[in-house]
C-alpha cells in the first residue's frame, strides 16, 4: 500500500494547555501523508477563520492584471462580446484548475514541494518549478508597488507633477523631451524611471525608486512575518478596500463628462471578433493568469486550512469574484477612457476653432465647438485659396480614433489614468485614492507570492527564515531600479512565468487525473468535504482542461518560434524599437531551461528512489 492515500477519520483536536502555563503543545492528529516533513511537535498554523482564507485568495487573485490587462483585452477583442469566450473559459478551465489546487493544498497540508512529493515522488520537480516561478515574480513585482508608492507620495502637492512640463534651464520654454511627448509620459519615463535609451545601458540606482522599493519590501515583510496569523488579518483590508475605491471611482467615472462614450464603446459588441482564434486564446490565457494558477500560492494558502473546510464553495466564490472584479474594473476603466477621449477630442476641436478664428480674423463667438466642422466646410467653400494655406495645420479630430487607442500594463496605469486624473477637479484626492488602490492590489498579490516560496521552505526547514528570503529577494530586485530596469521587468513579465506556468499546470492536472488517479482524488475530496465532486469537475479535469492547456501550450510554442527575434520598445528622444541583443536573448531562454533542469532533477528520482514504495 502507499502512504499517499491514507484515509484518516478526523479525531477531536489536540487538548491544548491554557496559554502561558508553558510546555509544548500536544501534537495534533494530522491526517497522515507519505513523508512526514514537519516535526510532530509543532501544530500547523491555521487561518483564523475560513473568511480569512477566502479573502486571502481574493486578495491574491484580484491583482493588477484585473485592472490593466483585462480592459485592454476587452477593447482589442470586440468589446462586450469578449465576455463570451471569457466566461466559457472560466468554466472550462479556470474553475476546475482552481478547485484542483485548493484541494491538493488542503489535503496534503504542505506547500507545493511537499504536496507534489506526496502525490508522486517522481514529480516533486513540479513543486520546485512553482517556487522558482514565484521567485521570479517576487523579484520584480515589488518594483510595481514601488512605483505606486512613488506616485502616491508625489500626489501630495498643490500641482500634480505629471500635469505640467518642467521648464528648461533658461526658463524660456518647456524641456524638449517633455514637449515632444506628454507631461505624464515624461514624468513616468524620465522622472520616475530615468529610463536608459536601451537595455545595454547600466547606470546607477535611482534613489527615489530604491527608497520606495525598500518601503514596499518592509511592508511585505511586516505582513508575512508572522505567517498566516499576520497575513490573515491584513487581507481583511487588502481584499476589501480596493472595492471601495473602485466603487467611488465608478460613481466619479459615470459623472465625468463624456464617460458615456467610453461605456457605449465597451458595451457594443463586435461579434466578428469571436471568429478569430486569437480572441479565444487570449481569453484562456487571461483566465489562467488572472487566477494565479501554478505559482504554488493557492496550494500554500489552502495548506493552512482546516481539513474539513468547504473549499469547493469557496473556489467557486473566489473565481466568480475575480471575474466580476475584472468586469467591474473594466466599466470604471472605460468610463475614464471615454472621459479622456472626449477631453482630447474637444481639445482638438478647440485648437481647430482657434486656428480658424485667428487665421480668418472672425469674431470670437462666431465659431463654437459645436459648429467647428460646419465652419470648416463653409470657409473651404468661400475662401479656398486661403484655406489651402492652413489645411496642413488642421488636425483631423476623431472621437473614434481617441477611443481606439488601446493601452495596457504600466502604460495604462501610470500614464493614461494619471492623465485622466489631472483633468478631474480635486485631482490630488483622486490620485491618492487611485494609487492606494493599486498598492493594495499589488500588495495582496505579493503576499501570495511570498507565501508560495516560504511555505514549502518552512515545511522542509531549509532556508526557512522569512527575513532571509525577503532580504535576498530585495537585494536582487534592486537591479530593477537601474535606468534599464524597466526593460528587464518587461522581459521577466513576458517570459518569466507565462510559458512555464502553462507547462506546470498541465503537468498538475494530468498528474492528478491519471498518475495519482481520479478515483483516489475523488475519495480524498469525499474525505474532506463529505461528498464526491460531480461529473462536471471530473470531466473538466480528465479531458477538457488538459486538452485546452495542450492547445494553449502548442500555440505559445508556435507563436514563439514564428515571432522571430524578440524586440522591445525603447524610450529614447524618439521611441525606437530595438532588437534584443544576443546576450539578452540567451537570458530569456534561461527561464525555460530552468524548468527543464527541474524536471531532469525530478527524473533522478526515477533512477535513485528505492524500488519498494509501499
Amino acid at each position, binding site marked *: 500500500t502507499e502512504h499517499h492515500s491514507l484515509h484518516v477519520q478526523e479525531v477531536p483536536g489536540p487538548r491544548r494547555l491554557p496559554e502561558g502555563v508553558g510546555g509544548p503543545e500536544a501534537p495534533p492528529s494530522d491526517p497522515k501523508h507519505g513523508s512526514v516533513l514537519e516535526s510532530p511537535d509543532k501544530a500547523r498554523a491555521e487561518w483564523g477563520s475560513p473568511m480569512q482564507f477566502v479573502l486571502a485568495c481574493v486578495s491574491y487573485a484580484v491583482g493588477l492584471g484585473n485592472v490593466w490587462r483585462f480592459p485592454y483585452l476587452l477593447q482589442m477583442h470586440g468589446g462586450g462580446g469578449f465576455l463570451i469566450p471569457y466566461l466559457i473559459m472560466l468554466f472550462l478551465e479556470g474553475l476546475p484548475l482552481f478547485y484542483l489546487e485548493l484541494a491538493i493544498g488542503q489535503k496534503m497540508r504542505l506547500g507545493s514541494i511537499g504536496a507534489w512529493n506526496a502525490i508522486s515522488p517522481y514529480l516533486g520537480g513540479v513543486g520546485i518549478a512553482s517556487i522558482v516561478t514565484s521567485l521570479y515574480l517576487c523579484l520584480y513585482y515589488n518594483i510595481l508597488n514601488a512605483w505606486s508608492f512613488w506616485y502616491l507620495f508625489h500626489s501630495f502637492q498643490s500641482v500634480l507633477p505629471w500635469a505640467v512640463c518642467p521648464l528648461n534651464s533658461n526658463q524660456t520654454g518647456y524641456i524638449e523631451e517633455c514637449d515632444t511627448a506628454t507631461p505624464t509620459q515624461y514624468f513616468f519615463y524620465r522622472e520616475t524611471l530615468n529610463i536608459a535609451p536601451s537595455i545595454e545601458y547600466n547606470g546607477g540606482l535611482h534613489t527615489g525608486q530604491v527608497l520606495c522599493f525598500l518601503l514596499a519590501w518592509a511592508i511585505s*515583510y511586516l505582513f508575512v512575518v508572522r505567517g498566516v496569523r499576520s497575513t490573515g488579518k491584513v487581507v481583511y483590508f487588502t481584499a476589501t478596500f480596493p472595492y471601495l475605491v473602485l466603487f467611488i471611482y465608478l460613481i466619479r467615472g459615470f459623472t465625468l463628462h463624456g464617460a458615456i462614450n467610453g461605456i457605449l464603446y465597451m458595451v457594443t459588441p463586435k461579434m466578428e471578433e469571436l471568429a478569430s482564434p486569437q480572441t479565444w486564446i487570449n481569453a484562456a490565457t487571461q483566465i489562467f493568469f488572472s487566477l494565479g494558477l501554478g505559482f504554488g500560492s493557492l496550494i500554500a494558502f489552502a495548506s493552512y486550512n482546516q481539513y474539513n473546510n468547504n473549499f469547493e464553495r469557496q473556489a467557486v466564490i473566489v473565481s466568480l469574484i475575480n471575474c466580476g472584479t475584472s468586469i467591474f474594473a473594466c466599466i470604471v476603466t472605460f468610463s475614464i477612457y471615454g472621459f479622456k477621449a472626449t477631453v482630447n477630442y474637444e481639445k482638438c476641436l478647440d485648437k481647430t476653432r482657434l486656428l480658424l478664428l485667428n487665421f480668418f480674423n472672425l469674431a470670437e463667438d462666431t465659431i463654437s465647438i459645436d459648429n467647428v466642422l460646419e465652419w470648416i466646410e463653409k470657409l473651404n467653400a468661400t475662401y479656398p485659396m486661403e484655406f489651402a494655406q492652413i489645411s496642413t495645420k488642421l488636425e483631423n479630430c476623431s472621437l473614434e480614433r481617441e477611443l481606439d487607442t488601446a493601452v495596457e500594463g504600466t502604460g495604462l496605469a501610470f500614464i493614461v489614468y494619471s492623465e485622466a486624473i489631472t483633468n478631474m477637479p480635486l485631482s490630488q484626492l483622486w490620485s491618492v485614492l487611485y494609487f492606494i488602490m493599486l498598492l493594495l492590489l499589488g500588495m495582496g498579490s505579493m503576499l501570495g507570492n511570498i507565501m508560495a516560496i516560504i511555505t514549502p521552505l518552512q515545511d522542509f526547514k531549509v532556508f526557512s527564515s522569512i527575513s532571509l528570503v525577503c532580504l535576498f529577494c530585495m537585494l536582487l530586485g534592486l537591479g530593477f531600479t537601474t535606468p534599464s530596469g524597466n526593460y528587464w521587468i518587461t522581459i521577466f513579465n513576458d517570459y518569466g512565468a507565462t510559458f512555464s506556468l502553462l507547462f506546470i499546470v498541465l503537468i498538475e492536472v494530468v498528474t492528478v487525473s491519471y498518475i495519482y488517479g481520479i478515483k483516489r482524488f475523488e475519495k480524498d475530496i469525499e474525505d474532506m468535504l463529505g461528498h464526491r465532486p460531480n461529473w462536471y469537475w471530473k470531466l473538466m479535469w480528465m479531458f477538457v482542461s488538459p486538452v485546452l492547456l495542450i492547445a494553449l501550450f502548442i500555440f505559445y510554442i508556435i507563436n514563439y518560434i514564428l515571432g522571430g527575434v524578440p524586440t522591445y520598445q525603447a524610450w529614447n528622444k524618439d521611441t525606437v524599437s530595438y532588437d534584443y541583443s544576443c546576450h539578452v536573448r540567451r537570458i530569456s531562454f534561461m527561464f525555460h531551461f530552468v524548468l527543464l533542469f527541474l524536471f531532469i532533477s525530478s527524473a533522478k528520482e526515477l533512477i535513485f528512489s528505492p524500488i519498494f514504495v509501499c
Partner: protein
Amino acid sequence: MIMHREMLGRISLLLCLSAALAQDLCKQDAEHGYKVRLSIKTALGKEAYNWTENEMFLFQSTLAFAMRNHHREHKFEVSNIIVCEETPRVSFWFVVTAPGSNSTLVQRGDVENAIRKSRSRINSVFLLSDETLEFIGIHPTLAAPVTYDSPPWLIAFGVVMGLIVAGIIALFVSSAVQKKRKKQSYEETEDNMWIENGSARDGVRNMAFVEEDKFTPM
C-alpha cells in the same frame, strides 16, 4: 493775408503728409510693428466687455505707459502709438513712433523689451492673461515652477516608512517579551506540574503504525 493762406496750405499739407506717413508706417507685417490679438470672450465669458474705440484708446495709453517705463527719459504720448488693421477678431497691428518725431519708429527690439517689462501690468489693465492678450512674436515668460525646500514626497515617504519600521520593531519586541515570559513561567512550573502531553515530546514516532482503518470496517 497771403502768408496766412500759404501757412495754412503748408500746414495742411504737412498734416496730410504726416497722416499719410503714419498710415505708411503702420501696416500689416510692418517691420517694426507687432500684431496684437485679444480673446476677451474666452477669458471672461459672461463678463466680457465689448471692444470699442475707448478700449483702443486705453490700449494706446497703456502701451505708452509701458514705453515710458522702459525709456525713462523719453515722454511717450498716446499719439506715438499708431494702430491699424483692426479686425472683428479683435486683432490689430501697432507701431511706436519716437516722441517728438512722427516718422522715426522705435526699433522692434526696444518695443519688445518694454512690453516684456510691463507685461503683467498690461494684462491686468484688460483683465486678461498672457494667453488671451497675445503679442504675436513675443513669447510669454513662463511662470516659475513651484520649488520646495524639502520635497513633499520625501516627507510622506518618511512618515510611512517610520510607521512601518516602528511596526516591525514592535513586533520583534513583543515576540521577544513573550518568549521571555514563557521561559520564565515554564521554569517556574517545571518542578510542580506533570505535563500530560509531555510524553509526546519524549516519545518516538512509530513509523510502522498505520492509522488507516479501511481494511477493517466494523
